[in-house]
């Protein structure tokens, strides 16, 4: 306290000078509009600068927390994206050259080994034999017969059907069949044992059967089984939709279907 007193005493003239100058400036700013506006602008700019600096420091100090929150959000988004990819949905891309016609399933497969499904429309809706049938973007069968107003559908829940698929988008092409026992299980057979088929992996159409474009989701891997010493394994697949109870259908056909059919025939014997 004494030192403070000595300090004040030593600088009394300077302090008095500053005090009187402050009083003078106070009077000036109070009565001079130009000075007042400049003062407020300068003071406002200074306050904004200080506030901005403080905000920068706050941001810097909270960087780790924000980074952690963003990392968590990123993980959630990745998880959602992965789930969406697994659930799968195929949307029409005109660039791929496929036409889509919509219809309804009026009779689903009943779970018997050879049961067929019935849908609308028929030839009146432009349907033809060999069109792929989707429900909610998931492959479920193909048209095998067409009437005037109805179409007969060979569903995947039929032991007579074989569908060209692959595990993941780049796995080897293997046949998918229904073994006729459980409506919730399809089976990929003759899967090379080196193929990675983890539980939850999505099974897609390969497009090699010319019924569907490649990349249409069918189901997800439930389990895989490999017989001892075999180079192949079978993979159990859970369909992405309940084929017995779907209602809305999409029929797809390639615009160059006839050309593909001709060109895909074996060469005639010379």
């Amino acid at each position, binding site marked *: 306290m004494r030192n403070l007193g000595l300090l004040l005493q030593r600088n009394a*003239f300077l302090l*008095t*000078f500053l005090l009187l*100058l402050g009083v003078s400036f106070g*009077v000036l700013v*109070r*009565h*001079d509009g130009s000075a007042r506006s400049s003062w407020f602008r300068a003071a406002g700019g200074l306050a904004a600068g200080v506030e901005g600096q403080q905000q920068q420091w706050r941001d810097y100090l909270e960087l780790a927390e924000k980074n952690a929150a963003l990392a968590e959000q990123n993980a959630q988004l990745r998880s959602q994206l992965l789930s969406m990819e697994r659930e799968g949905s195929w949307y029409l891309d005109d660039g791929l050259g496929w036409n889509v016609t919509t219809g309804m399933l009026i009779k689903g497969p009943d779970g018997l080994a050879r049961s067929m499904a019935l849908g609308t429309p028929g030839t009146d809706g432009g349907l033809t034999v060999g069109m792929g049938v989707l429900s909610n973007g998931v492959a479920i069968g193909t048209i095998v017969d067409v009437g005037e107003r109805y179409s007969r559908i060979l569903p995947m829940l039929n032991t007579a059907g074989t569908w060209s698929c692959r595990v993941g988008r780049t796995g080897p092409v293997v046949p998918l069949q229904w073994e006729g026992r459980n409506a919730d299980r399809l089976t990929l057979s003759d899967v090379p044992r080196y193929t990675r088929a983890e539980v939850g992996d999505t099974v897609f159409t390969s497009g090699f059967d010319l019924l569907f474009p490649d990349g249409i989701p069918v189901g997800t891997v439930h389990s895989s089984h490999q017989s001892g010493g075999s180079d192949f394994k079978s993979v159990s697949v859970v369909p992405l939709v309940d084929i017995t109870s779907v209602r809305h259908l999409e029929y797809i056909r390639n615009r160059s279907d006839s050309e593909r059919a001709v060109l895909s025939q074996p060469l005639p014997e010379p």
Partner: protein
Amino acid sequence: MTLARLALMVVLQAILLESVAPFGEWTRPQWALWALFMVPPQAGAFTKLGAGFLMGLGLDLMMGTYGHHMVAGTVLGGALPGLHRILAPRDGYEVTQKPTLRDLGFQWVLVLSLLGAAVFHLALMLVDTWHAHLMPGALLPALTSAVWTACCCLLLHLLIVPPGRKTNG
């Protein structure tokens, strides 16, 4: 005596002498500075500071320029002890010496008047223009006005306390 002289010069400048400006803004005289320059150099620093502040306050009250002359007067009052110290004779000021032509000489009075007027006019220029972009244009008139003010102060010295006449203030 100092206070009376200050009050008189402030009133005279505000009422009458302010208009003695032959070249307009280039020669704005501050006659009241003469009264401030007449504060004895032996006086305390607080006295000089207070005199400068009061002179500015009086000018502002009389001329309606609130704050402008107060700032300039306070700056000059704060600078005056330094000016006196710089201009002090080698042996310091004698107790009986007055800041007049007879006691301290023409050169001392002239330099003090020029420097003091320059400080006052520059401070006044700063608070008058206030904006930085206007100051270059106001600098030269402020300096010429300082010279004119110094001339006016010298004139007052010659008229009121000429070199050959003994001062009693």
